[in-house]
């Protein structure tokens, strides 16, 4: 158990530090003492508004979305036994984007955009899974290939939509495509889902470890493979849909965070999945803090920051592990 608790404890501290940093930084900087006072119900009205209504919901959303994306990526990689898999490669975010952009193009906002993203993600899930299943069950290679092709199709649809969009609506759409936490005001649903998933993967973790060695081997060792695979796929799809719905399309977290953790911590899913929740959350939280402070008062798309932070870190770890 020590082998599990120590890395998770360390990552939890990192997450806490990231949270404090994200609450402190911004147009008005606050000290940790002031933040603590506000969280205890004290402090001035400006600090109250700033933290409780602006920064805290956004920070918690960023953390939850990052965690969901990283866990979804890790699950997809186990399911497909392919380190390149993540919900974006499989076309889920493409479907979500098309749904959300269609709503924006129609000139409606708010909940309809959210609903469109969710519907698009689910449609894409069913499309990929249904088509890859075909006759006689699906194989990881076929699922991955179907996902990649469907994702490419969504990409074309997105380009088409952008091409016919009036210029005044383009910036909002582009920001959504690159990920934008500015409108993430409801952190509790994604946070609750993240917590539920983390509790669920602890008992499932060893079965996932066995499944990572191939479906036949897993079945021979007592795993109900088909049921587990469906569960992973639908679960990871729901996590992605929730993440995309909250913050738009943020690439890279689902691919890179599980990888970095595997290089550092090994391949026990019982450790990797909760670690992904913490590290993915921290990464997106830091990225979002940077995105809204670097060229303040302007904001950068957070997806750009995750990529700029993640790519060199990932390449360094990969290089060192050889």
């Amino acid at each position, binding site marked *: 158990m020590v082998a599990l608790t120590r890395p998770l404890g360390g990552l939890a501290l990192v997450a806490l530090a990231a949270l404090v940093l994200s609450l402190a930084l911004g147009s008005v900087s606050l000290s940790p003492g002031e933040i603590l006072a506000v969280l205890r119900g004290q402090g001035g009205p400006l600090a109250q508004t700033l933290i409780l209504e602006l920064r805290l919901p956004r920070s918690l959303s960023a953390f939850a979305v990052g965690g969901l994306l990283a866990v979804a990526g890790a699950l997809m990689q186990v399911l497909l036994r392919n380190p390149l898999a993540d919900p974006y490669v499989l076309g889920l975010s493409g479907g979500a984007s098309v749904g959300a952009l269609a709503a924006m193009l129609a000139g409606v906002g708010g909940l309809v955009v959210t609903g469109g993203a969710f519907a698009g993600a689910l449609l894409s899930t069913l499309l990929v899974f249904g088509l890859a299943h075909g006759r006689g069950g699906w194989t990881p290679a076929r699922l991955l290939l179907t996902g990649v092709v469907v994702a490419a199709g969504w990409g074309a649809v997105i380009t088409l939509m952008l091409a016919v969009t009036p210029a005044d609506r383009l910036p909002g759409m582009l920001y959504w495509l690159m990920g934008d936490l500015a409108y993430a005001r409801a952190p509790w649903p994604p946070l609750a889902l993240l917590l539920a998933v983390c509790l669920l993967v602890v*008992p499932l973790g060893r*079965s996932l470890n066995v499944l990572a060695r191939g479906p036949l*081997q897993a079945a*021979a*060792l*007592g795993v109900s493979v088909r049921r587990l695979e469906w569960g992973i796929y639908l679960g990871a799809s729901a996590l992605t849909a929730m993440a995309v719905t909250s913050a738009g399309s943020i690439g890279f977290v689902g691919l890179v965070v599980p990888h970095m953790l595997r290089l550092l911590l090994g391949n026990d899913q*019982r450790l990797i999945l909760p670690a992904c929740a913490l590290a993915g959350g921290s990464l997106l939280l830091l990225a979002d803090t940077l995105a809204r402070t670097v060229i303040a008062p302007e904001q950068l798309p957070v997806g750009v920051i995750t990529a700029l932070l993640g790519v060199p870190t990932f390449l360094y770890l990969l290089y060192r592990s050889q």
Partner: protein
Amino acid sequence: MSRLEARRLVIDIPGRGDGRALDVCLEPGQVWGVLGPNGAGKTTLLHTLAGLRAPRSGQVRLDGRPLSGLGRRQVARRLGLVFQERHDGFPATVRETALIGRHPYLSPWQMEGAEELRLAEAALERLDLTHLAERLVGTLSGGERQRLAIATVLTQAPALWLADEPTNHLDLHHQTEVMALLAEEASAGRAVMMCLHDLNLAARWCSHLLLLYPDGEACWGSAETMLVPAALEALYGQRLATAWVDGAPVFVPAR
């Protein structure tokens, strides 16, 4: 102790006729060898007997109950399978790989404890792998990986062993060691069925043989009744010369 029974079993190989339905019972203490040319369906037979593939017709029964009605976990506590092919998903050490043999016995909330570790270490020791315990599986040689697959099933400790070419990639010494291990398992009241390509290993170590022909025909029985040169020549389409060494027949291709 467990027994595995095939009743009127026809394995499902696409595009092939039914051939002869199998009525075979794997009893405690027996070592069965499955012989046949490439593509005769040896692997498919083992996978069908393990419940990983549905048969075309007939039934597999484990301790008197239909295999299809048992949960995978229950089956895995009694029946272990050494695969011919292995896929590495993510990097794992040799020790971790042996430890997954305990998966069917642990509840979802349980972590591997000292007892599981002890069983895994003993299995690695038995297969000469102790010095490799910390190595990543991907860095092992073919023969070392084969021994690891056997060590994993030894950690699983099933009453029934189904082994698909367990001596693949092994050097002469380790071939003998593995066959002795399987024979030892059988004499301890467990049962073994393995696919083999080496007639001489089969003649030396198997108590029973099942000959599987490419058209689905089959015959089976005790080893001494099945090791008829004419039948083996027909099985492989290869003329054989026979000699006797250490009280067992030795078959070599005739010139």
